[in-house]
């Protein structure tokens, strides 16, 4: 990957993930508002184990992680000038994202019914 290409790739990925997150948020909010009447545990569990909802929600979280990584990287590069501090913060954020990624994958894949 060329140095020139890195910024553009991040810029593009930030926007593609944004569109997925945005559309998912709007659609999910509307669906939740329609079916808001006292959801039971069984309904909740069954809904989230449906392959389509399960995987699309997992992808929603993955899109957020990607979006967060690029966004926080932009913020740190803009405001944090010392290189060592930059690296520490970026490493901490990367670690946090990896932990959350594994965590949410375990949660959702453990209820997935294929």
């Amino acid at each position, binding site marked *: 990957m060329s140095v020139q290409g890195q910024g553009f790739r991040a810029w593009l990925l930030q*926007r593609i993930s944004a569109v997925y997150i945005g559309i998912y948020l709007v659609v999910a909010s509307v669906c939740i508002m329609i079916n808001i009447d006292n959801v039971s*545990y069984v309904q*909740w*569990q069954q809904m989230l184990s449906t392959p389509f909802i399960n995987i699309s929600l997992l992808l929603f979280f993955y899109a957020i992680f990607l979006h967060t990584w690029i*966004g*926080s990287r932009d*913020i740190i590069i803009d405001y944090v000038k010392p290189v060592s501090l930059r690296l520490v913060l970026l490493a901490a954020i990367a670690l946090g994202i990896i932990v*959350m990624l594994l965590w949410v994958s375990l949660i959702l894949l*453990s209820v997935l019914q294929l």
Partner: protein
Amino acid sequence: MEKVIYNKAKQRPKFINLLKIRMPITAVVSILHRISGLILFLVLPLIIYGLGLSLQGRDGFEQAILISKSTPVQLLIIFTVVSVIYHLLAGIRFLLIDIDIGLNIVAARWTAIIVILITVISMVLLVIGVTGL
């Protein structure tokens, strides 16, 4: 000629301190987009925790609902939803600007005002809706 411009540029006062700069509304919308993004990143582990708890059997589900009804969590939920609404609206505005919609300064100011207005209105409605005032 070039030298004059260079010198002039050098003499300009530099205010790097964000509190001393009078920011135009378009800059405020941009910085709030970053702040709301940071807030959402910090709330993300709590959301994943709640999702995990709600799927840990019947007891976990009931517990998650109970926690979500406590006052501090209700406030946190409102705060999070408002951050989401703001981040989404400001994000849509930036995407439109990317494809040259609302790019000129007058339109950019108006869309900035609209983003802030809708966020404030939705915040008021949420507070009224949740507290039942």
